[in-house]
């Protein structure tokens, strides 16, 4: 959910509206905001599944340090979505394991 109005910060500044494609679905975003922010605003919280336990992960540090929020962005895995700006038309996929998307889920051969 977006915070449209705030007692201290006021109304959200107007920014260009763009669209991301997240696991095949269109997700609205504001140009230049962190990808993670757009996903959280749209109610998405699971960004990836871990390599060993397939545990769901999402935003944890929001500073680009912990790497929990990594996803596949335009085909590139391990992109920290909390510090990567959203651009129109970006294709974003839930990451499974160290580099795979949904499609490669069962084909992965990862060390554990």
């Amino acid at each position, binding site marked *: 959910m977006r915070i449209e109005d705030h007692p201290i910060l006021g109304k959200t500044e107007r920014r260009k509206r763009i669209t991301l494609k997240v696991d095949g679905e269109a997700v609205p975003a504001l140009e230049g905001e962190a990808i993670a922010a757009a996903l959280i605003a749209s109610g998405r919280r699971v960004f990836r599944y871990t390599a060993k336990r397939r545990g769901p992960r999402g*935003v944890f540090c929001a500073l680009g340090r912990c790497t929990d929020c990594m996803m596949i962005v335009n085909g590139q895995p391990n992109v920290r979505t909390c510090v990567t700006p959203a651009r129109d038309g970006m294709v974003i996929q839930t990451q499974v394991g160290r580099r795979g998307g949904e499609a490669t889920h069962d084909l992965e051969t990862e060390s554990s």
Partner: protein
Amino acid sequence: MGKSEIYVVGGGAAGMAAAIEAARAGARVTVIDENEQPGGQLFKQIHKFFGSGVHRAGTRGVQIGRDLLKEAEEAGVKTRLNTVAYGIYPGKRLGLICGDHTEELASPVIILATGASENALAFPGWTLPGVMGAGATQTLININRVLPGRRALMVGAGNVGLIVTYQLLQAGADVAAIVEGLPYISGYGVHASKVRRAGVPILTSHTVLRAEGDETVERAVIAQMDEKWQPVADTEEVLEVDTICLAVGLSPLAELAWMAGCRFSYLPALGGWVPVHDENMESNLQGIYVAGDLAGIEEASTAMEEGRLAGLSAAEALGYLSAEVAEARKIEVRERLAALRIGSFGDGRAIAKRELLRARCKK
């Protein structure tokens, strides 16, 4: 413009203040910051700062951040954003990553102002989406302007936990409770009073036992703890929350200082392992200064004053300030620092800082 002779790593409160002082004295200064914007955590601090009225107490952190950036620009400080200092090598050589390539450079003076990282608390379910650092929460609500959830549990009643609880309420979320392992509230009473008035209970001697939920946090189970920090039987309580925020302290983010070979002391009052430094904020390595949370966890006002000390000292070392002028300025700053480190919330830090000084003098 010639080559910079002072590189400041980290453009937060301490780093910017250091850069401004040094640049005003005439030194050529570059600030390296890994983010798109400098300012560090200041832009998340939307509350009015404490401190001395003559030194901008009562001003919100976000405004202080904007002013620092303006002052830096006016002073001619250069900034290199989206640039990570990934390593530091003998001969004061910094390794930088910018975009798709790396770069190495040597600098006569390096000021490390790398800040802090949030401590974690491990409990079953803490890897579920919805469990996050209090700092992460603050970034989401005050920078990204999105709510991480509708109802949160805050873990920790230090100043960070209390302030972020209040800010969650301001952003429009609910906070079910604050749990604190200690038998008392370690943050300022006035911060605690604000959230109590807003209806948030503060449960001391309590902890979070586990987070539950299928794919994300749906509930938190909390319990009372005894003096040995063990959960007391039959005190478990289930809170319907979708977010659990961890505010269990900060640690100096000291990788670069360790890599540089700085000597460290372990001082719990300052957040753990801290690089030793003298009254000029110089580490045991000549020409490498430390300031802000890296030099001991405190808060933004002390970080800025430490940055000023480091900046003045660095400018003096490079010959831009005479010893007399520098000393006069430094005495003022040290007096303000001392004033921020007294009383029941400051004494422990003041003592620990003196220990760091002693450790620095030991060979």
